[in-house]
């Protein structure tokens, strides 16, 4: 793939918190347009820290994040134009309806002239029930909120989408529907970076899979490479291994 297709890039990225914990240790990774990158790892491995660094929620100790070629630390507002974010537990504004939430976040994302139909269309696309469009979000199940979260990401139409354990806590059907949406977005050329615990779904959707342990990217495999390897076994082996072995 050409360099122009590079949408997300972490260049020698490290993060040491004030309490001395090294959450991320010289991470190098990139995600290209039309690619799904799944980052696996136990709790505290550094997956969410990586996303937080890409979103400039925390400054890196060393290294640089780039979104669409823009240095996130130097020009965070410009960089954030090219990224959408879906969290593990999309909460939104409970007193607002799904459409009102979508409208607000679309405007924050720079889409100011969208019609009600445009919002409905996106919500239909993510298979949110029609009757829920004008319902207050506080009545929504987690699955419905996650769908609305991905609607917000879709409507922003950014080249990169960051997802922080988006299928965690979803029932299998909802998780499957969610992955179908991601497949569609991938086919539209979005660069998708997803942190997850779910090895099976990562293998199902990921074009590349990284395994993190104690802040380090200890393994990276392409979909093709994994055809001949057992990802579950590799993952468990890495989790069991001593830090220096990893």
């Amino acid at each position: 793939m050409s360099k122009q297709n590079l949408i997300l890039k972490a260049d020698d990225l490290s993060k040491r918190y004030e309490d001395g914990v090294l959450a991320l240790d010289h991470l190098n990774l990139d995600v290209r347009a039309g690619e799904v990158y799944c980052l696996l790892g136990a709790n505290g491995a550094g997956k969410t820290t990586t996303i937080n660094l890409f979103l400039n929620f925390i400054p890196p100790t060393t290294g640089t994040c780039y979104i669409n070629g823009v240095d996130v630390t130097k020009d965070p507002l410009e960089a954030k134009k090219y990224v959408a974010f879906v969290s593990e537990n999309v909460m939104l504004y409970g007193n607002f309806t799904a459409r009102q939430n979508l409208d607000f976040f679309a405007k924050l994302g720079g889409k100011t002239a969208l019609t009600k139909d445009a919002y409905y269309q996106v919500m239909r696309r993510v298979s949110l029930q029609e009757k829920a469009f004008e319902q207050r979000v506080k009545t929504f199940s987690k699955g419905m909120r996650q769908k609305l979260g991905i609607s917000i990401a879709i409507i922003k139409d950014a080249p990169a989408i960051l997802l922080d354990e988006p299928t965690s806590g979803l029932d299998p059907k909802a998780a499957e529907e969610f992955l179908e949406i991601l497949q569609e977005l991938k086919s539209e050329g979005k660069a998708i970076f997803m942190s997850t615990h779910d090895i099976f779904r990562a293998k199902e959707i990921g074009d590349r899979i990284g395994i993190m342990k104690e802040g380090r990217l200890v393994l990276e495999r392409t979909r093709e490479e994994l055809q001949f390897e057992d990802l579950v076994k590799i993952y468990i082996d890495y989790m069991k291994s001593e830090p220096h072995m990893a």
Partner: protein
Amino acid sequence: MIWTIARKEIASNLLSYKFFIVILLTTLLLFTSFFVLYKDYKGRQADYELVRAKPGEPIAVVPPNPLSIFAKGLDEAMTRSFEISPIGIDVRTGQKSGNAVFAFFPAPDFVYVVKIVLSLVALLFGFDQVSRERENGVLRLMLSNAVSRATVLAGKWLGNFLSLAVPFVLVTLIGFALMNLDPGISFGPSGTGRFLLLIAIALVYIGLFLSLGILVSALTRRSASTLVILLLVWSLLVFVLPNLGTLVARQIIDVPSVKALSEKRTQIWTREILLQIVEQRAVNFRGDGAIRKRHLDAINTELNALEADYRTKFDRLVRLSKTINRLSPAAGFVYAATELAGTGIGEESRLKSEVIRHKDAVLLEMDRGVKEHPAFVYRYRTVGRVLAEGGLFDLAWLTIALILFFALGFVAFVRYDVR
């Protein structure tokens, strides 16, 4: 973008029970306050009609101030009648037809409602703006967009301020318009202007507490902690500090009590009367009038000196109390609002000086044998003078505190860990 966030805040407030209940309670409180203080004013106005000076009578009395409906301040003390006689000024105490309950509880006027209730309401609107949105994760989603934290904070402040200010101003203006329907109450252009300024000061005060709420919200991780801290800070600013100032000032400046002053007056009187009797006996009560006059003059001179000394000390005490109390924005607001309404400490002090001046003029005329005396006329200070004599300082202090809290809130929010 600021307006997009502000609109979201307004819509979010309009859809919440918190907003509905708070606005309903505030409206009820304000209207109740207007009604109660209106009745109180009418009662005092009726009293004034009874005690007002007949032509030529040496009585100094001013009618109740219509703006006392909104900022009662010291209006009750100012509208007592001061009877002038050769032996000094006698304050009529039996003229207290105001609501007796106010002796036990503060008058729930507009200033009181804003000072206590609306400051708390503003904090309640501000406390969850940062810490709660962090807790539920909305802040991360919001800041994952190309929107600066300054914009988010400004939008939140503006939206919440408008959510509070618009209903508050509407209810207050409706109350004011209803008062104007009574032909017995005339605010005039000056009163209306002062009232509008009063609303403006109240808005600055509300904005200040909203900024404080957001500041503490941006300094804490959990909304429950934010609320507890804010309640403590609110109690300190609204209740503790204004009382502390007065207590501290009393320790520094020694002012004789009213009782001690009264006893001293009696002593002067007794001494001079006894001296007069002794002198009159010595001359077999010849030249009686001259002796009497000399002793009355001596009494007047000594009482005036006593009064002047008391007032000097009292003024120092008031000045020091005010200075210390001003640490609390609540005190600053009360000073600015009452002075503007013409019911403040400065206005009352000025009225007393005018009464003393009137007394001296009347006594001079009495000496000359004039029986009829000109009526006492008191003109309230102009708005310009009120502002120049401390009002502007209080207003500036409130505005600076608002800007300071907002700026500190911004700094805290910029450094805030949204994770």
